[in-house]
């Protein structure tokens, strides 16, 4: 059977069209990626790209400055938060709400037999210690907090209602040298104790621990 020339030509045409469409698809995706093809278009495209690049560089410069500003603000904020946290910790320690560890003094007061120490003696001692920069004070393991009170009933001494007996163990965390000098000052606590005939022992402890709370 002889096939008509028109069918052969039409079939060839079909193949060419398929190839053309495939080629268009390939070239179109390429053009979309690469952009222009002619030299003039390329120059225009390049100029546009350069302008875009310039504006983007300016934008980057602005954003860099903004980043620097924000970093500064962030650092300032961090510093502020840090100092605030330090302040909070300090006040928590001073108020006896937080356990504290550090170098401090251990003072042992041993009165003579049947000798009664007045509550004022302890109040003076505590005030001297606070004045010397104490961060935390405990008497017979009872932490002095923000609302602790010393009280004397007859021969009995108590801290916020809790009885304390001799020998009295006072633990203080703070600047040891200052605290010692405060106590040893002429006419100070040590001298008063000597006059009263009370035995006083003082030692430095590098790892003193005073728990939070105590009697509140």
């Amino acid at each position, binding site marked *: 059977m002889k096939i008509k020339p*028109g069918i052969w030509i039409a079939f*060839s*045409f079909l193949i060419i069209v*398929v190839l*053309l*469409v*495939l*080629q268009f698809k390939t070239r179109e995706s390429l053009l979309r990626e690469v952009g222009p093809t002619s030299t003039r278009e390329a120059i225009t495209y390049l100029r546009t790209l350069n302008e875009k690049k310039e504006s983007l560089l300016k934008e980057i410069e602005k954003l860099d400055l903004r980043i620097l500003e924000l970093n500064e603000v962030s650092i300032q904020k961090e510093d502020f938060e840090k100092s605030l946290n330090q302040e909070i910790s300090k006040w928590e320690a001073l108020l006896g709400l937080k356990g504290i560890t550090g170098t401090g003094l251990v003072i042992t007061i041993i009165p003579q037999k049947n000798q009664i120490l007045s509550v004022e003696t302890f109040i003076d001692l505590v005030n001297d210690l606070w004045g010397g920069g104490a961060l935390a004070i405990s008497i017979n393991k009872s932490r002095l907090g923000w609302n602790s009170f010393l009280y004397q009933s007859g021969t009995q001494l108590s801290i916020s209602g809790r009885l304390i007996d001799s020998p009295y163990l006072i633990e203080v965390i703070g600047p040891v040298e200052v605290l010692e000098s405060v106590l040893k000052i002429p006419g100070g606590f040590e001298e008063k104790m000597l006059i009263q005939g009370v035995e006083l022992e003082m030692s430095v402890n590098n790892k003193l621990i005073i728990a939070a709370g105590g009697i509140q």
Partner: protein
Amino acid sequence: MILFILALTIGIVVGFYLPWQIPLIYSKYVSIAIVAALDSLFGGLRADLENNFDNRVFISGFILNAIIAAFFAYLGDRLGLDLYLAAVVVFGVRIFQNLAIMRRLILNNYLKNKERK
């Protein structure tokens, strides 16, 4: 004419929906092959109009011209010589020649038919 419109439609649809693309490195060679195939197509049309169409000549020309043109382009690339330009020029000139001859033949046929009437 209907055959051509049908071929065009089917070709577009098939080409569009084929889940395949010509790899970019072969794109140039396919372009040359298309130009060569177009030359053969117009040659075939011209031969048909002149009533001396030969299937074997047409098919062999269609396939071989396309392959040789693509190969020339490839060779040119390898040699660093724009050999594809030779194919483009030759096939381009031939396409226009064939188109001019076809135009004359169609016009002559049309005028003859008119005179007969």
